[in-house]
């Protein structure tokens, strides 16, 4: 890969998706584009570069999609989802008692495991949410990933890398020998939409809880700031944001203030409208326990 090739693809990705590819991540190009090379029966990476330089729009689309397909897994990192179940959801139920509804957004949902982890957690709340109207909106830029998310079919490896076996048996049907399809009942109230985080998100509506995990690290700082600002405008004043555990809004955007950086947990920062409590800390459930360790 020549420096010119790298610069060309790097510019294409930045312009179309906000993804910032630095030289030290150039190995990712070959890894991520291998499926495109195979699908198109190219000889190698040079054929991809030649194609996009010729201005082949379908190929450009495929390249952006391949580079933007994010790694994900069910209940990734565990602790943020345990916090979501033990603290944020009970507090949401308490705070939204009068209207009995809330909305959750999963940004960069990729192949859907995050959105379904949220749905599985809501289902576990059982009777506590029986009379509630709740919805999950899951967005991603990549059509192929969203299609997989909508199908809800996962390999044996994917389901085992996060789901407890009883949760798997209770919520999936086995398809053939090695695939598992999520039950339709769990998908009720879920929407999957193609959306680019660097564009205006306003039309998605307002949310009480937002997951945007392992997405902003793909962007440069100005784009991170813009994306976090876009997200903050969607979030309720007492709402919470979960970033990836190694991501931060500190020093990037004043739209959020940290609640627990080990969990990637942030609250909306609106100094003009001080909020006494947010969903992560309100009520009696604030003493989050994970194993023997209190984290909040």
């Amino acid at each position: 890969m020549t420096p010119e090739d790298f610069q060309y693809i790097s510019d294409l990705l930045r312009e179309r998706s906000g993804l910032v590819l630095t030289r030290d991540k150039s190995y990712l190009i070959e890894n991520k584009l291998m499926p495109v090379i195979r699908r198109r029966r190219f000889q190698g990476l040079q054929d991809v570069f030649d194609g996009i330089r010729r201005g082949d729009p379908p190929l450009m689309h495929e390249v952006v999609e391949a580079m933007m397909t994010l790694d994900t897994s069910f209940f990734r990192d565990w602790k943020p989802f345990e916090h979501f179940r033990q603290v944020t959801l009970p507090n949401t139920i308490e705070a939204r008692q009068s209207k009995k509804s809330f909305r959750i957004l999963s940004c960069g949902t990729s192949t859907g495991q995050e959105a379904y982890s949220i749905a599985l957690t809501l289902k576990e709340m059982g009777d506590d949410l029986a009379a509630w109207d709740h919805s999950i909106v899951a967005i991603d830029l990549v059509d192929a990933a969203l299609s997989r998310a909508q199908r809800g079919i996962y390999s044996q490896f994917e389901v085992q890398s996060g789901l407890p076996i009883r949760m798997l048996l209770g919520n999936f049907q086995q398809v053939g020998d090695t695939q598992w399809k999520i039950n339709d009942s769990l998908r009720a109230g879920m929407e999957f939409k193609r959306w680019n985080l660097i564009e205006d998100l306003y039309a998605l509506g307002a949310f009480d809880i937002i997951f945007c995990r392992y997405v902003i690290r793909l962007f440069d700082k100005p784009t991170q700031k813009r994306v976090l600002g876009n997200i903050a405008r969607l979030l309720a004043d007492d709402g919470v944001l979960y970033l990836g555990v190694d991501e931060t809004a500190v020093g990037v955007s004043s739209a959020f203030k940290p609640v627990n950086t080990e969990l990637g947990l942030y609250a909306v920062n609106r100094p003009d409208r001080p909020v006494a409590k947010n969903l992560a800390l309100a009520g009696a459930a604030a003493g989050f326990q994970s194993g023997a360790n209190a984290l909040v």
Partner: protein
Amino acid sequence: MKQCLIVDDSRVVRRVASRIVEDLGFAAEEVADGAKALEISRSRLPDVVLLDWEMPGLSGIEYVKELRQLPGGEGIKVIFCATENDVEHIQQALNAGADEYIMKPFDGDIVRAKFHIVGVID
């Protein structure tokens, strides 16, 4: 150091599993059949067992039933790790007393996830 008993009649599987659990900070002990696993469990209980289904002598199902009868045996975390990957077999293992189930083939991410789920690692 926490102990993991690996019970599988395949030497290759035992070696792969040992490397994975050692990377997770466990001391691994390998045995090739359920009867030997039960003998070891009678003298010293491990923290977690990775257990194959079909083995010469005592099967995985028979082992877990016997283990649960031992003093202290009810609290040992048992994770089946088997090629039987249909719902009926999985349900049978859970009914016999297994805590979790891994459908082979497996890798380090899967073992780590299952160890977290049964609570032997954070």
